C-alpha cells in the first residue's frame, strides 16, 4: 500500500470515528417505551399486546443478587395489583438460557418472564444497573424508572405503581 496524503486522511478519519465515544440517551420518565418482542416461557412476549395496561418491566439475571431479592416483591405486585391492570414482565438477560431456567427452578416467578440472551432490549431501555425496572403507563410511556433493588425500596416502588395505576 502506498502512503499518500489521501490515504492518510482516510486513515485519520477512521481513527477519529473509532475514538468517538458512542452517545447514549438515558430513557427517562415521559419517553415512549421501546417495544419488546421476546420469547417467553410459552409464547412470545410483546409490549404491544399489553397496551392499555400498566407494565412493570424488570431486567434481571441469575447471577445478580438484588434481582433474586426482588422476585418475592414482584410476585407480590402481580398478585396484589394484577386485577387493577398491572402486568409484571421480567426480562432475563442471562447469556445462557440454562442459567435462567435453573434460577427459575429455585426462585418461583408468578409473573410473565421473557428471555433476551442478546441484551438488545436492555440496550434499548438503556439499562444502567442490574436489576433495573421501568413502569410503563397505560399510555405506553415510561412513567417511572428504578435502578437496583433493596428491601427498603419496596414501599417507594409500590406507592409509585399505585399512583400510576390511578392515572388513565
Amino acid at each position, binding site marked *: 500500500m502506498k*502512503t499518500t*496524503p489521501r490515504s*492518510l486522511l482516510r*486513515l*485519520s478519519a*477512521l*481513527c477519529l470515528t*473509532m*475514538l468517538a*465515544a*458512542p452517545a447514549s440517551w438515558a430513557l427517562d420518565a415521559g419517553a415512549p417505551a421501546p417495544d419488546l418482542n421476546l420469547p417467553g416461557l410459552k409464547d412470545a412476549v410483546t409490549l404491544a399486546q399489553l397496551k392499555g395496561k400498566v407494565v412493570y418491566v424488570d*431486567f434481571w*439475571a*441469575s*447471577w*445478580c*443478587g*438484588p*434481582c433474586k431479592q426482588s422476585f418475592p416483591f414482584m410476585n407480590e405486585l402481580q398478585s396484589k395489583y394484577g386485577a387493577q391492570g398491572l402486568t409484571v414482565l421480567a426480562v432475563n*438477560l*442471562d*447469556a445462557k438460557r440454562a*442459567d435462567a431456567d435453573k434460577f427459575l427452578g429455585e426462585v418461583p416467578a408468578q409473573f410473565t418472564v421473557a428471555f433476551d440472551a442478546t*441484551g438488545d432490549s*436492555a*440496550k434499548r431501555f438503556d*439499562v*444502567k*444497573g*442490574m*436489576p*433495573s425496572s421501568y413502569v410503563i403507563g397505560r399510555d405506553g410511556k415510561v412513567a417511572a424508572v428504578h*435502578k*437496583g*433493588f*433493596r428491601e427498603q425500596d419496596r414501599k417507594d416502588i409500590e406507592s409509585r405503581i399505585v399512583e400510576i395505576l390511578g392515572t388513565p
Partner: protein
Amino acid sequence: MSTAPDQPLVAGSTVPPTRRALSRLGLALIAAAGLGGCAMSPPQPWEKGNLARPEMTMGGDALDQRFVQHIYGSKEAASGGYGVGGGGCGCN
C-alpha cells in the same frame, strides 16, 4: 553465504524521508486508535455474569473476606467495590 558490498544494509533507507514520516504518523494513529479500542466497550451491566462469579473475587474464603471487609469498612468509612453482584449503582 555472502552479501554484495554495494547494497544498502537497511532496506528502509531507500524510502524517501517524507513518505517514511507519513507512514510513521499512520502507524502512530493506528496505535492511538488501538488504545481507544480498549476503552470503547466496557461490559454492559447485563454482561457481567462471568465477573459476578465467586472465583472472580480477590481472596478465597468468603467468611474471611467478610471479616476483612468489616474491619476495613469500620476504619475507612467506606465499603463496596468487591466483585460484581448486581446493583451496579453502588447499592451492593
